């Protein structure tokens, strides 16, 4: 009996709690307004945000995690139209160009802020330059054996959950595939074509195929090697680590101002994502204001044994300019010969650096080579030591052109400071006599 009463009482307590709970059919009011009113309000607010101040925005668009991001400029109007402009190789393909040619395209289509679980920015009529990333057609490829992506395409979104707005930045998320992206307000007077040209020029200035690897320089003085920069799918591994087993890839977008990873990444405990281009051409991390992306120190870059530096004799000064000018005169006096080139490179057969003067005579070029060893005496300083070795042509031409020997002596006697227009892509290098800043010569890869 006791047992029975206990069970009955327990049942009553459980039942009571359940039934009382079920009767409370409204949770406490959290919001001042009901859901529909709030959605409607959010829709109106985001519509206002998108169309105000000229309605021009930059979208940093990612179709998926395996492709680079692409910048699009969008001008939203209150009549429901939006002009979308971009410049990339996929637009080039749409326009009948080769797959590798970034091409500008601009088209007006429709947009709307709709409501679903929250406000959604929908580009709800087809724009051939934007929806190409959502189109399920096969992705064009230069590789005949490539996978057939029919039915999938790039799997990009064209509807975006509007997450939040702050400081002229809209934080959005692809509705179907969930990639987070941002939109930033752009001056309404910006010309779309000029802007997109500048973005592509920025991309070209960042990663140059002639500089095969650059470095992420972390605050703790460790470096991560970055390869394949020109593809915007960066291959990265810690300097000194095994590339094959440790390399990871991250896709990035190059914008009008810099470079961003699709998602924040953590290297040696430092989380980084957004980089701004600096005046010296390097990239500075906006998130920690310390991490940079640059090429190697300039002395190492200059001494890279696979590089062949060509002198831009017009961009020279002081004694370099004087000697080159004299050399041209001397060569002309020597049977109307001409100075066709001045180069510096590493001669693998001799394990020496060489300065090579190309002397043109009757459609034949003779190279007068003088050989050096080189040493880095600082991050940006280099010193050459003439070994006394020279090519047969140098024996002959050196006699007729004393200025050649003068340049060799100048290289041998001074320390030179290296500067470049871009620390990320140092394909030009100005070499200045550390003891006489008026004496310099510019080399280009």
């Amino acid at each position, binding site marked *: *009996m006791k047992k*029975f*009463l206990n069970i*009955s009482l327990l*049942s*009553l307590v459980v*039942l*009571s709690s359940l*039934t*009382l709970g*079920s*009767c409370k*059919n409204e949770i406490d009011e959290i919001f001042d307004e*009901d*859901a*529909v*009113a709030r959605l*409607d309000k959010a829709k109106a607010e985001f519509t206002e945000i998108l169309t105000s101040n000229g309605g021009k925005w930059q979208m940093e668009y990612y179709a998926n995690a395996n492709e680079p991001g692409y910048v699009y400029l969008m001008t939203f*109007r*209150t*009549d*429901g*139209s939006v002009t979308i402009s971009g410049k990339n190789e996929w637009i080039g393909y749409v326009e009948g160009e080769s797959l590798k040619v970034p091409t500008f395209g601009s088209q007006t*289509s*429709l947009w*709307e802020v*709709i409501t*679903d679980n929250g406000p959604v920015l*929908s*580009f*709800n*009529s*087809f724009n*051939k330059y934007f*929806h190409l990333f*959502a*189109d*399920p*057609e096969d992705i064009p490829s230069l590789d005949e054996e490539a996978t*057939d992506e*029919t*039915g*999938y*395409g790039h*799997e990009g979104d*064209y*509807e975006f959950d509007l997450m939040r707005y702050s400081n002229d930045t809209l934080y959005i998320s692809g*509705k*179907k595939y969930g990639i987070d992206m941002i939109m930033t307000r752009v001056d309404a007077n910006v010309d779309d074509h000029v802007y997109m040209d500048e973005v592509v020029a920025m991309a070209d200035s960042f990663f140059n195929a002639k500089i095969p690897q650059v470095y992420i320089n972390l605050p703790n003085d460790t470096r991560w090697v970055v390869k394949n920069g020109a593809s915007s799918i960066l291959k990265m591994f810690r300097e000194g680590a095994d590339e094959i087993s440790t390399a990871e890839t991250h896709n990035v977008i190059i914008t009008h101002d810099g470079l961003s990873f699709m998602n924040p990444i953590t290297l040696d405990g430092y989380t980084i994502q957004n980089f701004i281009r600096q005046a010296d051409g390097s990239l500075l991390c906006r998130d920690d204001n310390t991490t940079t992306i640059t090429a190697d120190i300039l002395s190492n870059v200059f001494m890279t044994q696979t590089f062949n530096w060509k002198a831009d004799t017009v961009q020279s000064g002081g004694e370099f300019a004087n000697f080159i000018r004299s050399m041209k005169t001397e060569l002309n006096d020597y049977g109307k010969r001409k100075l066709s080139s001045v180069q510096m490179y590493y001669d693998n057969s001799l394990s020496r650096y060489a300065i090579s003067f190309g002397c043109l005579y009757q459609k034949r070029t003779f190279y007068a080579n003088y050989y050096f060893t080189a040493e880095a005496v600082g991050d940006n300083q280099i010193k050459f030591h003439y070994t006394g070795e020279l090519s047969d042509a140098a024996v002959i031409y050196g006699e007729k052109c004393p200025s050649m020997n003068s340049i060799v002596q100048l290289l041998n006697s001074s320390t030179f400071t290296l500067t470049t227009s871009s620390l990320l892509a140092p394909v030009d290098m100005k070499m200045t006599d550390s003891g006489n800043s008026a004496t310099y010569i510019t080399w280009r890869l």
Partner: protein
Amino acid sequence: MKKIQYFISALLLVAVAAMSLSSCSEDKLGPTIFPDVDETLDPSSYTYQLDKFLEDNYLKKYNLTFLYKMPDVSTNMNYNLVPATYENSIDLAVLCKYLWFDVYDKVGGEDFLKSYGPRIILLIGSPAYNPTSGTEIVGLAEGGIKVSLFKVNAMRINDFNMMNEYYFKTMHHEFAHILHQTKTYPNEFNTISIGHYDSNNWQDRSEGQVASLGFVTTYASSEFREDFAETIANYIVKTDEQWNYILDLASRGWASGDEDDVTSQFFCYYYYPNNDVTQDLVYVSEWNVFTEVDEDGTVHKYWRNNKDSEGNRIVVYDVEDKDGIDGVEAILQKVQIARTWLKESWGIDLDQLREEVQYRQSHYDINELRKQVTDIH
């Protein structure tokens, strides 16, 4: 004693339940939380002309929402789809009216589509691909009220065959579905080709082979309902020449090198190498056969560009029709069932419908039709 214990316990339970239920009865519905949205069209809108056309010609007339601004949520999210272009949406909006709604208004009376027409038409720019089967969806009818037309961005307005195959036919195909989803068609239809449907491999069959089995298209051979919709749609939109070609295919015998392989190519002609009937026969495609007619009217068929060792042309033979099915009869029987069903269930004369569609689809001027939209101010 035990009975009393149960009684007390049960009484307590009933009392608690009654209390809790009675407290719930206080719930009342409040005023609607949905705002009273102003549906008036804004003349300054970029899409005002099309929106006004759709409002006047579809919404007000048929209570039909013509959705050309595609919300992804309105589609099957398993597919990757894109919206239609605005320009093609205009073209399809006026063509749907001219080739579909106006036709049924004329043949079935103005109330027909008001009562039985779809309530939503959704335009989608791309096809819905099924990558595993290699097929694509170009139209859908759902729940008797919604028709989705796909592949709108691929429209080539001056390519009659393309427009007919992918858009005009799809309109009538999907509407046939809407109609049979509302009033079912006679089961007799399903018995005509029973045992010859192949829902998994229909896309790999050849049009000649399926015609011989009594289907107007390969897709018709996938299942009963598609057969029904395809029969009606093809009968309506195919020109006399195209329709007779289907019947011609249906009248032939078809064979392949490997009858067990549904994906193998089927042929209706064969020859013997070097005209030597003791050798194994070789199947040959129709376009490699040329025909000559004698003075007495006898038809001779030869293999194009080849002769035997004696310089005689290689004789081509018709494949014997061994499937045991009169394909022409089966197709015509299906058309007749559809004809009767449309007449008796819906009051629609199929042949009058076909005549009207045939005239319109070969006489429309898209520039004139577009003016219904572009002339709106």
